[in-house]
């Protein structure tokens, strides 16, 4: 998957819209990784 950023569209968005769109793309990537078994772990202990 290749993320394409349309700069003119981004510039028309409000801060909230941009942030929600970025989160939507992240969720899409996460869900796809879960389904396709491509999630990986990097150890990080928070106590």
């Amino acid at each position: 998957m290749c993320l394409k950023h349309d700069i003119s569209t981004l510039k028309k968005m409000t801060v909230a819209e941009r942030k929600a769109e970025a989160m939507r793309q992240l969720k899409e990537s996460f869900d796809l990784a879960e389904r396709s078994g491509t999630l990986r772990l990097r150890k990080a202990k928070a106590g």
Partner: protein
Amino acid sequence: MPSYLSKSFLEFPHGALTAHRFDFRIEQHDFVMLFSEVIVNDPDYHAYRSEEVGFSIPPACYDVKFDRLENFNSGNFYAPPPAELRSRKRRFADELAEALETIIRLHHKAYRARAYFAIAETEKLKRFYDRVLQHPPRDVIYEVNIALGEGGRGYVLKTRYFNPEKNDSCRA
């Protein structure tokens, strides 16, 4: 005190790069925190993002976002919690700040991030960030730039990996 639900960063492909997820809980609220590296090999996008922050963004710089897990799962991003579950307690905000700092510290250590970028989409979140960033963890963050971008809602946290020659002089 925050509970850290994740013991590891969950890594997942996001475009040509990898994004990272870490979950935590404060009181009865579960949160997800996400780190996505800023794309630097798309010239137009890189120029756009660099102009916003005022410097040419190098690799290993991350956009940071967090939301309630319920919103992330439902796709209703950044929706406020139901009125009966909202916390106005200063303690809640302090614990949220503690969790964000702890997870950024872990992420910085694991991935040697050079900078973190955040945007406050609401006035409430901007007030929260402005307060928290008055005292950033100096062993991780050596420079904080605020009031960037549209509406002055953008934040840049440069880490000790951003400019290694300043590393020693900028530790607390």
